Each structure stands twice: as C-alpha cells, then as structure tokens.
C-alpha cells in the first residue's frame, strides 16, 4: 500500500510529439484511480511512465514520497496487467505467476505458498499446470491479474485489461477487479477508454485529453459538475446534448428558441448549451421542438432521438431524451421539450471553459 504523487510530469518524444503535458496528481493510499480519455490522449503513456517502461522527460513521480524517476521498473515495486495479458506462452500458469518471485530470490517454499494462495483468491487453482494457450480469455485475464497480485506490490497498474474480452465477461471481470482491489486495498491506477468502465470502477477519475488532465474527481462529481466541455461530452452515456448557443440581451438563443434564465453570459462569443438526456422532459409549452426520428426502448426507460434546428448550420442537430415513462410517440411526431435551467450547463465553444 502506498501513495503516488505526480508533479509536473511531461513526456516529449524525440520526434517532437508532446504526449503528456504537465500532469499533477496525488493518489491516496488504497485508492483506485481511473485514467480515461480517447485513444491517443496520453493516458497509457502516463501509466507506462509510472511503471518505468517510458522515461520521464520532465517532472517527478514519487511513491510513498520517494522519487522513482531513475529507479528501474523492477525496483519500483509496481505490477502491471497488460491489455494482451503478456503471459509467457511457454510457461505453465504456476511458472508464469512464480517467475517474478523466483527472480527476486524468494525461497521455493514461499513461492509455492504465495502462488497457491493467490490462485485460490482468483479461483484458478485447477489451472496451475496448464499453459496459457489452453485457457479461455477470462481465465488468462485472471492469470495476468494473479501474476500482478502474487508479488504483493505497492501499486497495481492496469492497461485496458478488459478490452480483449466479450461484453458479458467484461462486466463480470470489472466487478471482480473492483472486489479484489477493495479486499487487497492496494493503490491502483487503471487506464481505459470506456467511460462506463471508468465510472463504475473508479474511486476517483482523471479525464485526460491531449496529454492534459482535464479534470479529476469522483465519478459523480465529474458527471454532475464537469469543468470543461470535453469532460461533459466524454462522461455520460448517452452523451450530453450539446447545442450551439449565443447570448443576447433577451436571453440565450439556442436550438431555434430563446431561452430565458441565463444571465451574465458574454455576448459575441460562440457558446455551447449542454443538457443531459435525463434532464429533458416533455411539456406542451416547452421551448424546444424536436421531430422524433428514432426511439430506443430499453425496458426500464426509453431513448427518444430527434432533430432540432441548429444555430447557423444547415444540418439539424440530433438530441436525445431519456424518458422513464412508456413512450407513445411515433417517428415523425413533433414533441415540445423543456428543461430546468439550473441543471443546464453553458460552455465557451472555443476554450471549452464552463461558464454556468
């Protein structure tokens, strides 16, 4: 168990690419932090810098207060679960898990004991004599986790460990990872591009975009109170509805309507109005009108998609309404929508900064 501190961490590649830009972060003991962001945003690079597989161009990474920039990966006492598991194909499951321990000069009896204990925890004890090729995807995933856990490291690093599994197994393994992490209480960093995975797993979430941490906080904090346009659009499924908007002296002009109740917004700058699908509701005198073009009935609730008139562009903007009632509309119906001004967000379109 350990704390992890990143201060001013930068990564520049020799070809000039600036993959990680000034990341500061404090991770408390036993926390599960999830790095989430689109592919190529630098989240994996950051994780690999913590592991020691990439060098740190600028800044400092410290575990338990001690700088580890120059420490070799094996001496950092971190364990990593790779996306493709990276199990040694010619070794049995037992050898795969024991390899790191043996290389650290731990006596044979103790190695056997540790491996057996860990394999029980992960329910893979009957596979110890098999080779990775003889295991299913989920079992391989467990072995990869076992290899990390058995070493009893200070920090776990997960690099998109579930992306090679099918959807059903992914949900199950997600729960299992969460349970294990709780039980073992080891500080963990988890990288994913899947925001649902991120939301369900994380104690705290760091949304990363173009090498920068856009915002860090608990999943609900990020969902309810995003600081930037990027975070608002990245977190939440289905996505937040974003409509181009302009502030005028009478109110906010957006989606073909004039919306009162937004004060103090700068005029002359392009704005974005953001409303989550569940905050939109039907009302006969609602200001926004959509024409329904798709209805998804998911059982407990339904998603109604419809086009709304956009600001200046010719193309209509598609917005989504989440409804918990039975939807009686047909495709092509015109529906008037309403939302609570307090729950709407307004961003600057150019800088992404949140204004309201």
């Amino acid at each position: 168990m350990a704390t992890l501190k990143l201060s001013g961490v930068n990564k520049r590649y020799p070809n000039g690419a600036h993959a990680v830009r000034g990341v500061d972060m404090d991770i408390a003991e036993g926390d599960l932090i999830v790095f989430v962001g689109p592919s190529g945003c630098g989240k994996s690079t950051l994780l690999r810098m913590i592991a020691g597989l990439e060098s740190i161009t600028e800044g400092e990474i410290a575990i338990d207060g001690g700088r580890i920039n120059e420490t070799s990966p094996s001496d950092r006492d971190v364990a990593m679960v790779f996306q493709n598991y990276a199990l040694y194909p010619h070794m049995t499951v037992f050898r795969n898990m024991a390899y790191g321990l043996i290389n650290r000069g731990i006596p044979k009896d103790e190695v056997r004991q540790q491996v057996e204990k860990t394999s029980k925890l992960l329910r893979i004890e009957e596979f110890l004599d098999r080779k990775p090729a003889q295991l299913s995807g989920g079992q391989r995933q467990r072995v990869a986790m076992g290899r990390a856990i058995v070493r009893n490291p200070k920090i776990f690093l997960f690099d998109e460990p579930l992306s090679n599994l099918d959807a059903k197994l992914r949900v199950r393994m997600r729960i299992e990872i969460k349970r294990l992490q709780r039980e073992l209480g080891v500080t963990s960093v988890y990288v994913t591009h899947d925001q649902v995975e991120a939301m369900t797993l994380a104690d705290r979430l760091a949304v990363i975009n173009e090498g920068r941490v856009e915002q860090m906080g608990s999943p609900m904090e990020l969902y309810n109170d995003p600081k930037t346009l990027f975070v608002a659009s990245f977190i939440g499924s289905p996505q937040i509805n974003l409509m181009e908007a302009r502030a005028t002296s009478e109110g906010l002009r957006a989606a073909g309507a004039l919306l009162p109740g937004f004060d103090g917004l700068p005029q002359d700058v392009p704005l974005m109005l953001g409303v989550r699908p569940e905050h939109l509701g039907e009302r006969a005198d609602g200001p926004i009108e959509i024409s329904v073009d798709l209805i998804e009935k998911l059982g407990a609730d339904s998603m109604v998609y419809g086009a709304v008139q956009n600001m200046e562009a010719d193309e209509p903007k598609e917005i989504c309404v989440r409804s918990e009632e039975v939807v009686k509309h047909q495709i092509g119906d015109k529906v008037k929508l309403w939302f609570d001004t307090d729950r709407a967000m307004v961003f600057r379109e150019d800088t992404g900064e949140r204004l309201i």
Partner: protein
Amino acid sequence: MTSITWRTVSTHLILIAGTLFMGLPVWIAFMSSTHTAETLFRDGLQFWPGGHFFDTYSAVLFESGGVMKSVTGSRMLFNSMVLGVGFAVGKVVISIMAAYAIVYFRFRLAVPLFWIIFMTLLLPLEVRIVPSYEVVSGLGLLNTYTGLILPLIASATGTFFFRQFFRSIPEELLEAAQLDNAGPIRFLIDILVPLSKTMIAAILIIMFVVGWNQYLWPLLMTTQEDHFTIVIGIKQIYQVLSEGGELPQYQKAFALVMLATLPPVLIVLIFQNWFVKGLVESEK
C-alpha cells in the same frame, strides 16, 4: 475400385521413376561396397549384395592403413561430427546473440549494422578463402578444430531468421519480464530461447548438414591426416588407394561414401518432425 484412375497411376509412375533415379546410384554404391576389389575390377559395378560387407567396413572404419595411410574411417567420422556439430551450434549461438542485440538493444547503428551483416551473404567463404586462410594460419590454427570451425560460424541467414522471429514476439513480453525483475540475460535464456525452440531445432539440423558437407575449407585447412573429415577422405582415397601398382580398392571408396552419407540422412529422418514444425509454425 474405380477410384484408381489413370491420373493416380501416372503420378505414381512419375514418383517411382524419380525415386529410382535418385536412389539407384546409392544402391549401386552400397552393393558394390560389399564386393572384393577383384570382382569390381573384373566385372564392374555390382547390383546385388556380395559377401564382404564386414571385411570392407571394418577395414575402413577401424584399421590403420585400411583406408588412408594412418587415419581410420571412424576417426574421420568423428572429425566430421565435430565440424558438423560445432558449425551448427556455433552458427545458432552467434545468430541468436546478434539478432538479440539488433532487435532488443537501442543503439544507434543497429539498422546499418544489420544490413552490413546481411550483405556478407554476398561474400561466401569461396570469395574470401585466401584472406581467411591467411588469418587462420597467422593465428596458428591450421590443423585444429578451432581453425576448422571458427571462420565458418558467422551466419547472416541465421541472424536474419532470428531477427524476423524476435520481431514477431509481442513487446509486452519484454515489458512483463522487466517488471518481473528479469535482466537481459534472464530474458534471453528464460523467454526468448524457449520460445524459439522449434526454430533453433530447424536451423541446427540444416546447419549440421551444411557443416558436414563442407569441402573446400577443410581441404585447405587440414594437411595432416588426423584432422581429415570424411568428405575430404573421399577425395583423398583414390590417390592413396591406387598407389604402388596394387588393384584400386574401389569397394573401400564406396564404403566410405556410404558412411559419409549416413549421418546427415539419419539426422534429417529422426528430427523430421521438429524440422517441419520449425519452418512452418511458430509457437506463440
């Protein structure tokens, strides 16, 4: 049985003809080696077994002066074995180490160096034989096993094969090994070598046969009989055996040819499975 068509008959006929064409000379050599020198001299080549198999072969294998002036056939077989094994093992070891350095160590000249190694394919031993001889004789290695093997074991082809293979191994394995506290040597021994097992076996077999069949270099290198390989023995036997106005001992020459052919054939037959596996599939 309508399934036996004209087509199958004709393909089999062609195959049988090919087999006869390849096998018959070997058969004639083997049969002739079981006759006496007189029979061969009087009646020419023999197609059926004679009664002197043990006489000829024991003379060739074990008697000093039975085949060369002093060295025995078994000694020459042993020399060939040393050359074949040393050649194959040396090539594999050197190629693995060269490929390992080129693929896994980030040094500036890795790519040009690889192409320089690759370009040595254009300079086979036959082209550089005089300077090689000069170097080896300067080092005082003439008529030694070291001198016989060492100049031959650098291998561009082997390096190329292993380089291609190493590059196909996922990089995460290296990273996982780094986190597992395995240094460069551990990684090579514990992970790369076991993964390239079938590949190593295939290259060992090919190289053993190539080494066994080396002719020009051993011919130049070995001036003393006790370092002759069996292939050189075949070349020398005519000179030795027809000296002094006696009957030429052709049956002994044929016996020596048979003995020289046998080990490579056996090796390929026994390790055929490994050999095919190494060339066709990769265990990953």
